[in-house]
């Protein structure tokens, strides 16, 4: 059963095509990777799938809800961790979560559960302004999981984090499918996608250029002992590291 379905999903900004005719589907309990350089259209796709941005064309359904016409029904079914750390910094960790709990109509006891889930139970009373980036990222994941979403959208969740913290975040993400959560993960870290994702869509200039399991992408595109980086190079003709430097 598909939890996320996109069909010819398209978005342009003032005539410039950001995302072009994306068609893909993610299954329940799957970690679906959306891999591509900056500007490939990853965030635009997440914004459309979460109802924040109206597609210029095509359609998408998440948990069966149309992202354009059933946005209000869609909202409780999804959790979103944005590319940026958008917490209320004058509030403590627990205040941030209690506020979200009130918005979702979730029992306050759930706050302690998610804080424990991300290992922040001892930091609950601290203002988030003094949190490290890693702690903020954990809290953002806790906030996104608070209401028990069926799909979690993670936009570059380990970007700019220390390797140790990134590893902790990946561990949290890896445990989510066991709780029945489908994860839609955008990243430009090949290794991360390789390690975490059940399937990966490689996007380039707003188009999906390949979609398969990391194993198949590596082996079918490049060959034995290849990496996803090699697969990306084979598909786009350019290494990802180089692409990241291109404005």
């Amino acid at each position, binding site marked *: 059963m598909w939890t996320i379905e996109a069909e010819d999903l398209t978005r342009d900004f003032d005539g410039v095509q950001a995302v072009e005719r994306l068609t893909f589907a993610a299954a329940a309990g799957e970690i679906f990777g959306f891999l591509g350089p900056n500007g490939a259209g990853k965030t635009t796709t997440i914004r459309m799938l979460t*109802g924040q941005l109206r597609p210029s064309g095509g359609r998408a359904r998440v948990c069966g809800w149309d992202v354009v016409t059933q946005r209000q*029904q869609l909202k409780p079914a999804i959790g979103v961790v*944005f590319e940026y750390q958008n917490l*209320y910094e004058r509030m403590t960790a627990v205040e941030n979560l209690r506020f979200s709990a009130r*918005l*979702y109509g979730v029992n306050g006891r759930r706050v302690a559960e998610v804080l424990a889930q991300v290992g922040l139970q001892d930091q609950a009373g601290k203002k988030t302004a003094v949190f490290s980036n890693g702690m903020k990222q954990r809290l953002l994941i806790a906030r996104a999981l608070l209401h028990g979403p069926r799909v979690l959208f993670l936009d570059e969740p380990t970007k700019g984090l220390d390797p140790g913290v990134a590893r902790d975040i990946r561990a949290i993400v890896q445990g989510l499918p066991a709780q029945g959560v489908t994860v839609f993960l955008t990243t430009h870290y090949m290794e991360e996608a390789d390690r975490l994702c059940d399937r990966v869509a490689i996007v380039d200039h707003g188009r999906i250029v390949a979609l398969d399991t990391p194993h198949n992408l590596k082996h079918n595109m490049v060959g034995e002992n290849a990496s996803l980086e090699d697969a990306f190079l084979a598909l786009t003709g350019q290494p990802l590291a180089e692409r990241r430097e291109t404005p």
Partner: protein
Amino acid sequence: MTTIPSASNLQRLSLTSHLRLVGALAAKDIVDALKTKTTLTTLVISLLMVLFYRYFPLLVSDSQTLNVLLYAQAETAVTEALDRSPALAVYTFPSRERLMSAFVGAEEVELAVMLPETAVASPADGGPITVDGYLMYWVSPAQRAAVKTLVEAELSAQLGQPVTLNLTGHDVYFNADTFFFVFGATIALLFITVMIGISVVPHLMVEEKQTKTLDALLVSPASTWHLVAGKAIAGLFYGLLGSAVVLLVFRYLIVQWPLAILTAVLATLLMVALGLLLGSIVQARAQLQLVAWFVVIPLLIPVILVALEGLVPTGAIAVMNWFPTVLVAQMFRLALTPNASFAHYGAALAVTLAATLLLLALVVWALRRQDRG
């Protein structure tokens, strides 16, 4: 194990859910406003300005002498005695009308004395000379007693015989049918609602945009409308609190409390609607500060200009009389009169309400344009 609500049982929002969302957002903003330097500074400055408008006239007044506004049809021993008294500063007016015009604008305690041609000389029965004095209705009993004691003592000493100052039934009220301007109270009410409306409310909105917490709110069950309603309630909370402080500080002036409260609510609604519009349009804090000044000045200046009869062209005054802030000031003035009726303030009420609704419609338009890119 905690039961987590599933998507299926949260599909459609009930009225309770709408109230919960708006309540959560409003409560967050009400508390958060007190933690934000900008909004806290605005609230403190606004309250200090109210106190300034209330007490500054008292600080600069010459408390050593009592102003006596005098109209006398003829020179009498009493007029001479008043002039000679070192404790009284006498200002003579050529007519009752001119005297009353000056008298009703006073922001400190003054005494009006009107002496008919036949007044006082030396009563045949040898009893005290009676002088009719007038005080504004808002003068407190203690101030009345002080004025009476002072004037009677001064005149008795000057005339060498007892004098009674008759204040009974001589309270002077503002008249709804003639223009008057009570600067301090009117400007205080407008200043506090303008400052809270166009500073606190848009600041709360712009901050959500700048910190991108808005994005998190908009993927939650809260919609743009819940968000706007939450900000509006937070703005109304502080706006009404500020207005209540103004009404309490200037309570001695207010004659018609229902009209005063209606005016305060209307002024707050108008400014919150304007604040919501600014918050919907403006994207950054620096931009907001610039825009706010361009809005504050045209809102407050006409209120003062319409009072400067003779200095401002009549045509300009006629136009400015339709400014919503001028109409709010007009309604507030009417609340200080005993004879104002709906006929006096109905048009001002209707135009101000229409302006508020127009601003809210513009908020809807601005948000619809921005909704989902």
